[in-house]
């Protein structure tokens, strides 16, 4: 399943409790009150919705909505092409 910028924006709005209309490309995450924990929740929601696995470390240094959407779309689509979540073995604990 490919991941569109619109679907990513929907999840960002839902998980970070920011109005969808406030998610303009140049808006900074800081100005919107989107913190690192929100980004983790967004990543988790994307993983659950699209059945993909994303590395949270990829999101360090992201400052604007556009950057966040771009990196998610690229990573998510790459991950989706690589196969569904669950193909990787679980962590050995």
């Amino acid at each position, binding site marked *: 399943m490919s991941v569109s910028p619109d679907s990513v924006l929907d999840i960002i709005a839902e998980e970070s*409790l920011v109005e969808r209309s406030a998610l303009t490309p140049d808006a900074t995450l800081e100005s919107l*009150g989107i913190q690192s*924990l929100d980004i*983790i*929740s967004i990543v*988790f929601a994307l*993983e659950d919705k699209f059945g993909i*696995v994303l590395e*949270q470390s990829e999101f360090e240094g992201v400052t604007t909505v556009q950057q966040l959407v771009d990196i998610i779309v690229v990573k998510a689509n790459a991950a989706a092409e690589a196969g569904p*979540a*669950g*193909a*990787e*073995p*679980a*962590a050995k*604990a």
Partner: protein
Amino acid sequence: MSVRIAVTGLGCVSALGQSVPTNWARLKEGETGIRRLSQPHPDQPRLIREGPAAVIDRVDTSAADAYAGRKVTAQLDPVAVYAVVATHEALTDAGLIDDPVTLAGANIVYGGASGGNATMEDGYVRILLKGQASVHPLTIPKTMSSAAVSQLSMIFGVKGIAFAISSACSSSAHAISEAAYMIRAGRAKVAIAGGTDSSLHYGSWYSWLALQAMATDTCRPFSIDRKGMVLGEGAATVVLEDMDHAKARGATIYAELIGAGGSSDAGHLTAPSAEGAGAAVRAAYAEAGIPTDTPVIVSAHGTGTPLNDKTETEVMRSVLTGGLDRHRVIATKSAHGHLLGAGGAIEFLLGVLALRDGVAPPILGYLGPDPECDLPLSLGETRPFEAEALVSNSFAFGGLNSVLIAKRG
């Protein structure tokens, strides 16, 4: 006892609804929050939660959101959401929600039979079911036994002693009694007490099923052909206060907590003991200093399991004197289900309202008398009953017993 304990605020959420007025009105109307579930797991259709349950379908967090901020409340596990909603109501009711100075000096003792089960289950689904080698970074703080009380402290700015008590189905009754002792010891003028539980998730459901304690039809306390308990969820909070402090600020006083008695069976893990439970009831009467022929309304533990109700009957028949008809027994689990760690608090809370209003709401699901449960049960419909005191029983797994006695405020 020199320091008297006033009950000055109430709040709750259960399958009966949200808020004390809603729960009380529906209880008096003989309505139930129990319904039949039939829910397959979204990822494992073979797993199904099927049977009677007292589920909270929706929680209105708007008041808590406005107070704490939506970003705070949105990240909570349901176990903490219930606690926050109930406590916001109780503090508002007590006239303390906008009193940061009093709240800062308050204590909190909050019960829970477990922690954030929903978050725990989400984590296991990711790790073991989906093979995702990471869980949400807030998994530990959301699942720990003290998750709810930590949030209460942070959200309401309570800077006194705050901790969780876990004694299974007696947790919140123990919380109320220990909070009262804190006030009596002079450690606080105001203590927030209660409990919360959210155990209607698949893991909990199958665990309770394995225990073979769940009814297949509904909860029928003290009835012939009763088959077991019905799981519920929710939270209940009471604000306890030094009576002089409450009167000085003109607070509404629902009741006075005059006695708390506890005991441990030191016996069986799941089977109740009349000796152990009776010791807790007698200890509560001794502390309350009221004779056992005082007309009381008993808010029974009344789970609807064959053994609990039989044992509770034996206990109350051995304690109550003056003729059983001068007393009345209610069993509200038949309406809101078994709230586990919140059970003792919601049953005390509803008992306080019955005492205040001079009525006894009906026990639901009753099919007919069981000779082994010969108590003065409140049946049929809500009827006037003028009690002088409330006796609220909690007898938990592990034989951990806590009994609260209150009189009119």
